[in-house]
């Protein structure tokens, strides 16, 4: 099969702008993208850098963006993806590149995995015996833990695209594995931690992660499950940050009262009524909003129709046993 690989080259050491280099290859039927990359390195360009390990699509090491979609190179057949006998190979998005297809996984993913304290905090159990557990308790946790740490869900995440600090679907899937592991005692503590800014509440439910995951883990759904669990457990955000706590409290109080968000009140209450310095900082924003007609005057916040029903829903949720 005649095919041209168009590979994005970059070297952090020189810092020069990324460029695309073309390599014409003659590959056997059934060859994978990784076979092609190996062939280039062996026969045409020994400076091409990329990673690979298991060679069978189970370790997550050879993640690349092939024809604009995140793939595991070792199980992606060239014939199945080439268009007009061409493939483009680029690093996955939003990741600092070290060299060509080698990127900084520490910055992209590992540090986020480490941030969820990814080890079991055991709730006891005789150490000379296995835990007696029902299959049903384990099935979903097992599914979540089948994650390859390939990073493709983070690559597809629309929040990470604008905020690299977001914990992201992969790390949250790792967190899920502990929150729902019946042997872990730190469920609430973990949920509190995940409720901090840049945590699970930053997800915008675009469902991209589900579509990108090669394992069918549905990371977006895992995030929902974590959120549901934290509501069920009465875990509020902002344990480590008063401002965040006030923000969320005000949010809920406002919706509970009027059925919708009172943004003026939210801004002020998030800063805190007695926080003079913080309130002063709001002023320029308020002035700008006023100038652009975004701040109605007089400022009135009326209840919306159905507010009573909304209040009951919230109270029902708040009343759930923790």
């Amino acid at each position, binding site marked *: 099969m005649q095919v041209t690989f168009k590979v994005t080259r970059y*070297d952090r*050491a020189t810092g020069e702008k990324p460029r695309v280099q073309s390599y014409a290859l003659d590959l056997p039927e*059934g060859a*994978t993208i990784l*076979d092609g990359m190996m062939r280039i*390195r*062996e026969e045409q360009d*020994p*400076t091409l*850098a*990329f*990673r*690979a*390990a*298991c*060679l*069978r*699509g*189970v*370790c*997550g*090491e050879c993640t690349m963006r092939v024809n604009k979609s995140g793939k595991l190179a*070792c*199980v992606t057949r060239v014939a199945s993806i080439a268009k007009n006998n061409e493939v483009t190979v680029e690093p996955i998005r939003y990741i600092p590149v*070290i*060299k*060509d297809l*080698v990127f900084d*996984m520490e910055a992209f993913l590992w540090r986020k995995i*480490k941030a969820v304290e*990814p*080890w*079991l905090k*055991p709730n006891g*159990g005789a*150490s*000379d*015996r*296995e*835990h*007696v*557990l*029902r*299959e049903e308790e*384990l099935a979903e*946790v*097992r599914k979540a*833990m*089948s994650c390859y*740490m390939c990073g493709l869900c983070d690559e597809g995440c629309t929040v990470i695209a604008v905020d690299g600090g977001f914990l992201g679907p992969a790390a949250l899937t790792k967190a899920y594995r*502990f929150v729902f*592991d019946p*042997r*872990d005692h730190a469920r609430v503590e973990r949920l509190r931690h995940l409720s901090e800014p840049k945590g699970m509440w930053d997800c915008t439910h675009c469902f991209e992660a589900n579509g990108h995951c090669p394992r069918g883990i549905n990371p977006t759904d895992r995030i929902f499950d974590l959120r549901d669990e934290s509501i069920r457990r009465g875990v509020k955000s902002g344990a480590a940050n008063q401002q965040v706590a006030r923000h969320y409290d005000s949010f809920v109080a406002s919706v509970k009262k009027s059925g919708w968000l009172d943004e003026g009140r939210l801004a002020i209450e998030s800063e805190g009524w007695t926080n003079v310095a913080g309130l002063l900082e709001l002023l320029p924003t308020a002035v700008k909003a006023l100038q652009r007609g975004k701040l109605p005057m007089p400022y009135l916040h009326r209840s919306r129709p159905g507010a009573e029903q909304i209040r009951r829903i919230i109270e029902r949720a708040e009343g759930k046993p923790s």
Partner: protein
Amino acid sequence: MPELIADVLVVGGGAAGMRAAIEARKQGAEVVLLSKVHPLRSHTITAHAGINGAPAGGAWQAHALDTVRAGDWLNDQDAVEVLCQEAPRAIIELDHMGALFNRDGQGHLDRRRLGGQSAPLACYVNDMTGHYILHVLYEQILKSAAKCCDEWFVTALLVDSGACRGVIALELLTGKLHALGARAVVLATGGGVRAYEPSTGSLGTTGDGVALAYRADVPLMDMEQVQFHPLGLGRNGGLASEATLGEGAHLFNKEGQRFAQAVAPGMAELAPRDLLVRAALAELEAGRGVDGALLLDARHLGKDRVMTRLPQTREVVKAFTGKDLAADPVPVRPIAHRLMGGIHTDLNGATPLPGLYAAGSCASTGAHGATRLGGNTLAEAVVFGRRAGTAAAAYAKTVAAPRGSDALLKDEERRIALALSKGKGGESDVRLREELGRLMMEKAGISRDAAGLQEAVRGVAALQGRYAQAGPRGPGGAFDGGLVAFLELGYTLEVAWAIAAAALARAESRGAHWRRDHPERNDAEWLRHTLVVRGAEGPRVEFRPVTVRQWRPERRAY
């Protein structure tokens, strides 16, 4: 001056290395875990079927007898006893670390039966057992705060005044060589099956640690014993897990016969791998294959069972053959899988070189004999990994920090610079690797004889010679994968030579080592291990008695 970086330096981030590191940390040692790929990308991730250990209340002796019988009595039975006595506890430990083993109806650990097992021994997590074990161990590494050097490649051991005192390693991120001092070193670098082509090895299963120890004059044991797996999927090491057979799938020839029933009436497809592989080869040679393959049939298990118990195997089968394990018969053929032999160690992972320990697939404690029982490799990794970690930490307390000069580092720098300088015009190491893989497959493969093995020995020696004149094509520096592959080939050549030499020496058939010219097992002469020692002109084969305890040699029949 090598910088002291650890009390215990563990080379290898697979199951064995991480288990050793966790234990050494528990003993209070400063630990560095160094690996050429991120630990989660280690070959252990590919293990599917299970990890063996007798159930609570079950007798470990049954596991031991299965192990000895599969090993065709070449096992050292003291090592078998340790493995089988400690495996149940090691599995429970993994459960407490958070592994997600499948449960039976009562909520206890379920076990499945793999090849050569008279009763179910293997705890498992669907068909991704290695994945879960590796991830759980890595969680414990993060918890233990052991220091990790990911993507560092060891090129030599630092041996000084008769003891191992660290390693020379290439930092892949920068392309720089470093001398790293340690009071004790544990090699857990995995197997070397990429001496064969094709094989089920990951890219880096190139025998590095085995060769490093060998170059430091540590003997290698039982190198002739190479296991082939019946369920290869062709190119790039694709494999349908033995879990398929454990779940009840069958193997058919062209005529629709379950040929395994003829070689092992009592076990059929659950016979040990060497028997199954030889039966498969016989079918293929007699023309009873379908396009050079046999057919793995899991259809009668039903789609549900395939989807829940064998989901990853289904994915792998799809990726490699385009077939659906739940709906189609899958063409399979024997493929080189793993070495039983490796660095000779005692029951605590200690090698004859003070300060050097080894565990897991790179080591040979004698537990496996002439065929490794499916599910015993993971058990070995955690049982002997723990032991090596304990022993290395204890040893580290008794020795002073390494001293020594830069001489070794300078030597290595020169060696690599020289190779790089030869790369441009010289022969391609990629071709050399392909030739090696073919040679080993043809002359030192499933079926062997003296003439072929002599060719293998000569052939590998010649390849060594050509290798010495070749070099990597790349410039060196950061992430030069070609340089790493070139250095790995150097290791693989040592391993291949040792395999061929030991196979030529063993003039009998035992377990995986099948000599057409000596088709019988011969206990009178050959109930002993081969030890391959490095000599000036290549490997020298010595021998060592087998430790026999309660299981006297019998005829092996299933």
